[in-house]
């Protein structure tokens, strides 16, 4: 007996189209839709098949609730294998498949399999050890794709580890992701070996790939400086004393904005820095040294520029993932552009 649990969106589970995208997580005993094909293929394993359906919008708008509901179902059903998709090139569905499979694999350590097209944004959310079968970009590739699920499940159920890895190499997406593995020799041995190779002109290979920093051209001002509205933005973690909105002091997950309307400078004791990446003592003494409000007001008075924006924006950059910071940066930039801000002084630590 083997228990298979299959995650599908509202459309593939036959609940409905876009109008049902708000569908909450629901448990369906038995196989539905494409699951029936897989259920048949696993007949000789005496498979018990069940389905989780969830609307694409619901998953993204209520991710925490959706994952909690899926958690409960996984606990109750106790599957041996977890499936999601195939998502082809459906972005929201692909993201949900990736997140659900990663979550199940991390927490339950059972095989998790999904399938999608290489351009699906879900490929950015695939956790370690999740199988992602490569598909075409539309459901026209469904039959071929289901055959591959079945073959992989077969290999996993019969414990053919090497065969499963061969399958991964041949049919799964090669998403470039780095995870910890055992090299067999400690760093202090490998480093001296590499140095001797380097000194003796022998070949060696650096273990950490280098990426060129992405260059972002600074746009030209579209108005004269005298006509420009300027804003202050920082990743230095400056918040009102007591940190009322609980900005994280490391790995910021959000950005905040605070009004500086009518404020000439930041008084000591009214603001403080939440940041584990630098010594915040000097900023706590004089918060203007991380967000230079006093200097900007001075320049505003002598009309070097037109106006200082009424809010400053803040996050904490230390320890954060670059992709998260890129998201936050986009959010800040959108707000500033929407408010007619022409230029930004961005202070980093």
């Amino acid at each position, binding site marked *: 007996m083997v228990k298979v649990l299959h995650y599908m969106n509202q459309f593939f589970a036959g609940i409905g189209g876009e109008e049902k995208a708000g569908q909450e997580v629901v448990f369906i005993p038995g196989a539905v839709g494409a699951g029936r094909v897989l259920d048949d293929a696993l007949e000789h394993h005496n498979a018990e098949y069940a389905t989780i359906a969830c609307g694409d919008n619901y998953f993204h708008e209520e991710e925490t609730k959706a994952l909690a509901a899926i958690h409960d179902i996984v606990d109750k059903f106790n599957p041996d294998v977890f499936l999601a998709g195939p998502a082809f090139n459906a972005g929201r569905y692909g993201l949900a498949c990736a997140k659900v499979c*990663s979550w199940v694999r*991390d*927490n339950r*350590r059972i095989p998790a399999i999904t399938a999608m097209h290489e351009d699906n944004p879900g490929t*950015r*959310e*695939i*956790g*370690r*050890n999740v199988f992602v079968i490569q598909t075409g970009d539309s459901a026209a590739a469904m039959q071929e794709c289901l055959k591959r699920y079945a073959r992989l499940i077969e290999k996993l159920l019969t414990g053919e580890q090497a065969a499963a890895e061969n399958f991964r190499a041949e049919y799964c997406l090669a*998403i*470039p*992701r*780095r*995870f*910890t*593995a*055992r*090299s*067999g*020799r*400690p*760093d*202090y*041995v*490998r*480093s*001296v070996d*590499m*140095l*001797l190779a*380097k*000194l*003796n002109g022998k070949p*060696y290979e*650096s*273990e*950490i*790939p*280098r*990426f060129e920093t992405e260059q972002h051209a600074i746009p030209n001002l579209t108005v004269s400086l005298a006509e420009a509205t300027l804003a202050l933005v920082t990743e230095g*973690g400056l918040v009102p004393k007591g940190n009322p909105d609980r900005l*994280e*002091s*490391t790995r910021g997950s959000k950005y905040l904005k605070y009004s500086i309307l009518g404020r000439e400078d930041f008084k000591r004791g009214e603001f403080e*820095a*939440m*940041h*584990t*990446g*630098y*010594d*915040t*003592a000097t900023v*706590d003494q004089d918060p203007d040294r991380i967000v230079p409000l006093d200097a900007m007001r001075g320049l505003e008075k002598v009309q070097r520029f037109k106006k200082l924006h009424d809010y400053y924006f803040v996050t904490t950059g*230390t*320890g954060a*993932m*670059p*992709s998260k910071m890129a998201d936050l940066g986009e959010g800040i930039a959108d707000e500033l552009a929407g408010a007619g801000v022409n230029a930004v002084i961005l202070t980093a630590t």
Partner: protein
Amino acid sequence: MELEILDYRIEQIAWSDRTCLNGKSLTIHLPSLQEQIMDLCHAIRIDYEIARPGESKRIIHVLDTVLPIAKVNGAGPAFPGFDGPAELVGTGQTIRIGNLLVTITGRFPHPESLTPIETPREGILDMTGIGADYCHGSDHFHLILSLTPDPTVSNVAFDQALRSIALRCARFLAQVEKTGGAPERRTITLAPVNNKLPKVVLIYQVQSQVIGARTFYYGEEVSKTLPTFVHPAEFFDGAVVSGNYKIERKIPTSLHCSNPYILQLLERHGQSLNFLGVILSRGYNDSFEQKKKMGLWVARLARNLGAEGAVAFMEGTGNGTVDFMQTVKACEDQGIKTVAVLHESNGPKGYERPLVDHPKEADSMISRGNVSERIYIPPLAAVIGGTEIDLHFKAKHDARLPFLFDPTIFYGSYSKMGGSGFRAVYE
């Protein structure tokens, strides 16, 4: 300069009515130990526990581990500048118990008055299971002192007290009466070798910033010093002591005292290379200009020592990486071929850029693995040092329950992952 180490190892540890090392069996008389440190423990309650390698025990709120060392016949103090006056060390004889640690756990009395950077980070030490390969000291025996300060103790006083207590205990244990067993003897020296062998230095960059995130050399904060030459033997005598509670990335005092990089280079000295010694440097300088100069001064010292090559590692993360990379760059610019060792932070899903700073000169890197990858961490049978794990400012977690977290929850994990042979690879 020559230091002889008398290295004892134990196979058993137990409480008893007398303190002695009989063969490979250590017994400790608790009242004698308490008497040794009584003057240091004002308004601090201490609970004592023992842990052995392989036991199903999880030690939480770990702040430091110290190797029991002591000088023989009073030839200067071990841990100079702390457990005795600052006298030059690295000569004579040093006695130690090589696989025992004095382990200090506890929480600061007034966390609310610490700035974020001064605030200690949680560190758990798993003696077995998946965590063992991520935790410094999982392969050692432990005498654990869990410190609970009362509110009259200031943060500054607690920081000093925990260090003094640990170092004093370490001396006490190294000096126990010994019967029925001879130590392994080894000499730490840099004897002249074949001049044709490549001349190599070890670049040893520590974190030294503020209270709670600093490192000491002869009791002095490294942040107040320039990059300096240190003879390997000085490390074995406790010249470098940790006051860093950035727990996952810290180099514990016990690792300064018995560093596998130093041991490795000593082993190859005269064989395949000519080990010139260690350059002790500091990361976390406040400005880029300072970071750059720190790199220049390390390279200057390496050049003046005649180094042709360097192995470099660092204590810390992002901020310190910039000082580190400036050092690598400056060395390479001086023609000193440099291999640099770092952890990667590829994110839980593995696709983030591995390093925050990676100049093209750093073309020979050794990886210690992805420190931001999630690991499923099952519970162990016993928890020592408290009941709740602090998940890095985010939430409290019952230490008896399983959880999913990255290696930053483990004590000394960045060094230990390297020592366990971990590296990051593409899946």
